């Protein structure tokens, strides 16, 4: 079923009018309410009155992850804190995390787009859904929850982890829909076999998988292993969390809910739009958000996009899966990790920048593993074995506290980490996604 048939199948000309109308409202809204945006507009020499249709959006300045950090915590908000119903925090590049906030209407919007996403994947209101995304500051769990609530599904909010319990709940309550990260889904298959459950006999028939990059081959593996339809969902907390776009059962791209999240694909170097179908950076404007509306937010995700309506009847544009990043962010078990965060932690420990390297690996059917190699230079070196060991533990603890995922720290000898042109390669991603 199509959740919001009027909007999701709207003729393109009408959709464009709706976007134009919303953009005009939005620029006036942020110009009046958010001093940071007023300043950004003034500096770019653009006034709300210059924006008449959605095509004028190119006149507006971009918003970046740096803005999120620089104006932390509430600088980019367009409402006072008292109007916020909920806030979520994800990891930032260094120091400050990325804070987002939702008004009651924003939460309703979140529920609406997530309901669209679940229906797009094939769920119906009579379904039971097991939500195994983490609940908490991470947007995955609660975002899915609001969507399922809006749709009227029966929700089992298992959150992430406790795999044996997840499997028991699946067997006992027979949910048809599963929402979690794709790697966790595969991980659960191994656990299932260990306790004598045949994954192919599971009740899960539709998976809504996201929060980390995954490939077509991984999809094939999940579908064959669990005998289910595996669909991709995309989102980022800055825009709303999950629910920006979602694949339908035809699996020919992710439907981007462009009546509320207006997409552009640009050349990351020039900032100019690329031709339809070409790879570029996805830029999103939140057309109707109230709490922290963002103008032309640069997601740093590389995708391609088509505006050809889909055979499923939806008229929204469709993007490819994420093909890469314009920065060095990596996603590990749904958590955004920036090498600069590691650098920041190491700087805090000994006041210098030791050489380090992140190695991300995913063994077959296992969760991602992060190993951090840190070169022991003169500053870090202690001639006491106990102190070396406690240094290792300290680095591990501090990194785990910031990233909220378990890591392995390995102290290595100076000059062990390969350098090219004097600069060490910070990330080695061995995952075959």
């Amino acid at each position, binding site marked *: 079923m199509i959740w919001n048939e009027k909007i999701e199948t709207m003729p393109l000309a009408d959709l464009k009018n709706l976007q134009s109308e919303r953009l005009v409202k939005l620029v006036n809204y942020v110009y009046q309410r958010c001093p940071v945006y007023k300043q950004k507009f003034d500096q770019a020499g653009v006034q709300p009155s210059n924006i008449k249709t959605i095509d004028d959006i190119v006149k507006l300045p971009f918003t970046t992850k740096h803005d999120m950090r620089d104006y932390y915590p509430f600088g980019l908000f367009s409402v006072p804190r008292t109007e916020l119903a909920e806030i979520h925090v994800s990891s930032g590049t260094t120091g400050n995390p990325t804070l987002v906030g939702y008004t009651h209407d924003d939460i309703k919007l979140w529920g609406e787009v997530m309901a669209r996403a679940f229906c797009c994947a094939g769920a119906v209101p009579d379904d039971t859904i097991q939500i195994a995304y983490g609940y908490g500051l991470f947007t995955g769990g609660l975002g899915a929850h609001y969507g399922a609530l809006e749709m009227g599904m029966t929700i089992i909010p298992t959150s992430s982890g406790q795999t044996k319990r997840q499997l028991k709940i699946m067997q006992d309550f027979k949910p048809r829909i599963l929402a979690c990260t794709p790697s966790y889904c595969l991980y659960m298959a191994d656990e299932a076999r260990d306790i004598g459950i045949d994954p192919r006999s599971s009740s899960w028939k539709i998976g809504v998988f996201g929060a980390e990059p995954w490939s077509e081959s991984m999809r094939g593996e999940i579908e064959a292993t669990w005998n289910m339809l595996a669909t991709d969902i995309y989102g980022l907390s800055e825009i709303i969390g999950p629910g920006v776009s979602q694949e339908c059962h035809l699996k020919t791209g992710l439907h981007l809910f462009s009546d509320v999240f207006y997409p552009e694909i640009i050349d990351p170097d020039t900032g100019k739009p690329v031709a339809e179908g070409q790879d570029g950076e996805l830029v999103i404007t939140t057309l109707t958000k109230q709490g922290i509306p963002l103008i032309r937010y640069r997601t740093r995700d590389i995708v391609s996009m088509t505006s050809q309506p889909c055979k499923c009847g939806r008229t929204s544009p469709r993007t490819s899966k994420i093909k890469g990043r314009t920065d060095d962010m990596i996603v590990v078990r749904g958590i955004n990790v920036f090498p600069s965060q590691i650098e920041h932690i190491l700087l805090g420990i000994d006041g210098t920048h030791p050489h380090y390297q992140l190695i991300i690996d995913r063994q077959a059917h296992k969760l991602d593993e992060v190993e951090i190699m840190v070169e022991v230079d003169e500053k870090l070196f202690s001639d006491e*074995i106990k102190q070396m060991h406690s240094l290792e533990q300290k680095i591990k603890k501090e990194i785990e506290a910031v990233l909220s995922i378990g890591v392995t720290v390995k*102290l290595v*000898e100076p000059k062990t980490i390969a350098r090219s042109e004097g600069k060490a390669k910070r990330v080695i991603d061995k995952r075959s996604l």
Partner: protein
Amino acid sequence: MAKQLTIFLENRPGRIKSICDVLQVNNLNIWAFAIQDRGEFGLVKLVVDKPAQAQVALVECGVACALKEVLAITAPDKPGNLDRLTSTLSQKNVNIKDAYGFVSTGDKQGVCFLEVQNVNGVDVAKLISENGFRVLSDEELYAL
């Protein structure tokens, strides 16, 4: 006092060899060594004939190492001497953090290198000397 080189090494094949290579090239002689293993890495402790020169050579090769003073204690190579030494320390509640040794073949003297803690104001060198052992100076050690 005698000097000890402490060297950080990863626990994998060829790492100790790499240190020995540097010492060999610089014609430095190893008197004693010990290894503390901590899983993925370890510390190698070396007593060599020219410690300062060895440190410079190792640092130039990018090795993380430090030079520190340790007690070099001698006693005749006879049964019961290490027991006497450790009893002396334990009576004063001095903790031995690390110890290793060798026997000098010429005059049948045992040499023990000690790192201690919890000294609580005890002059360990004096205590040992008063109990019939000899604490070697740099020169005495390298003259053995």
